[in-house]
């Protein structure tokens, strides 16, 4: 479903990604772990072209998205993204945040879009916040709205960029629960996270990113229990 090959990205002199390969099948859940600055977030952002790779290939559903003439806007509709800082639209209500895309881009009638939004909000446990504005929500509630907003486009893949890093500790679980349920329902996902326990539980594969490369990728039990690379073991010993 997603194939990334030899993805390179530099910011000025700094080479952040030095050739990353990743293949994602339908229903796969991949956790990207690694130290800050390892390039895992940048790679995630390359997958929906919020960052444009300098070299390499990204193929989504058979379409080379870096080819000239590829319709990036259309492509992004099928890739949901959840940000560390939520990025809800502060001038719109929760309901409007969720229905903006469906009404404008999927061409849904307002009533239909609002019905879908209500269902999505129920699924993330926020039915009572439908008329609220983002500033009235806690961090965990904001992030759950952000997830509902991404899901409202009916994406084939969901990308999570450190979805709980900006949350107070007591709010982390409500967000992880929602993501875990998505995984259980078969959503294809790539999750950049520092929550090792969660990654272990929810991911089919864990990729350890180090210095712009995937150093090691394996099922969680294997990577956490018996890492092949010294650097992986070193990283895990610091965070576990």
């Amino acid at each position, binding site marked *: 479903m997603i194939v990334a090959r030899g993805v390179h990205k530099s910011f000025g002199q700094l080479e952040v990604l030095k050739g990353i390969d990743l293949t994602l099948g339908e229903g796969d859940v991949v956790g990207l772990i690694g130290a800050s600055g390892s390039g895992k977030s940048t790679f995630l952002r390359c997958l*929906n072209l*919020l960052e444009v790779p300098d070299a390499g290939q990204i193929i989504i559903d058979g379409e080379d998205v870096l080819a000239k003439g590829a319709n990036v*806007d*259309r*492509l*992004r*509709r099928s*890739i*949901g*993204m959840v*940000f560390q*800082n939520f*990025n*809800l*639209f*502060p*001038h719109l209500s929760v309901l409007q945040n969720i229905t*903006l*895309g469906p009404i*404008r*881009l999927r061409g849904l009638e307002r009533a239909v879009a609002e019905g879908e939004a209500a269902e999505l909000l129920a699924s993330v446990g926020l039915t009572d916040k439908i008329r609220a504005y983002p500033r009235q929500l806690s961090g965990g509630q904001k992030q759950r709205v952000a997830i509902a*907003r*991404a899901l409202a*486009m009916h994406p084939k893949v969901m990308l999570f960029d450190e979805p709980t890093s900006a949350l107070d500790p007591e709010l982390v679980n409500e967000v992880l629960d929602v993501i875990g349920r998505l995984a259980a329902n078969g959503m294809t996902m790539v999750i950049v996270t520092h929550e090792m326990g969660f990654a272990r539980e929810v991911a089919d594969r864990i990729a350890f990113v180090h210095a712009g490369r995937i150093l090691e990728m394996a099922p969680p039990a294997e990577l956490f229990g018996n890492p092949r690379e010294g650097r992986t073991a070193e990283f895990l010993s610091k965070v576990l």
Partner: protein
Amino acid sequence: MDHEVVSSYVPALLNGLGLTLILTLASMIAGTILGFALAMMRLSRFLILGGITTLYGTLVRGLPLLIQILLVYFGLPLLTGIRMPAVVAGAVALSLFTAGYMAEVIRSGIVGVDPGQMEAGRSIGFSYWQSMRLIVLPQAFRMMIPNIANQFSITLKDTSLLSVIGVVELTMAGQTIYALNFDTIRVLAMVGALYLLVFFAAERLSSLVEARIRR
């Protein structure tokens, strides 16, 4: 105070005030449209467009407005071969001037919006322009309101400079009266009061809009 004399000034001054308001509004509208274009050029990836706006800003901010008015009034007919009435030349000069400052008001409003907002818009599948229109600009506009009101009052007061090319706006209307009867102070006091009146009205309106939006 000779009440009758004073009230005899009112119709001419109100005519002048009317033209002042028309010139101010026209310059604000045209200046905002052109200023928006300049701001977008400034924010674009193309350096040449940014260079053009920088040059434009330097000219508008570096030259005295009086010189700009005279340049447009005398220069444009030479360039285009079309003679234009003073009021049109004045409106053009003030619009160009206002655009130079509005460009910066709009640019700073847009860059004041968290870049994550544009990214969130793009990640949903909106194009750059859709994200701009639906997500970034509504938020930027809130931050721009005080600056727009400020620019309005600057443009309002600067319409008085158009008196030098013979546009009968409020200041010129006053001058026309006291040139004949030498009732200088009273006429100028009335003229000043009218400017202040519009200024206060604009200020009040801006805080109302701001309060409404912040709710």
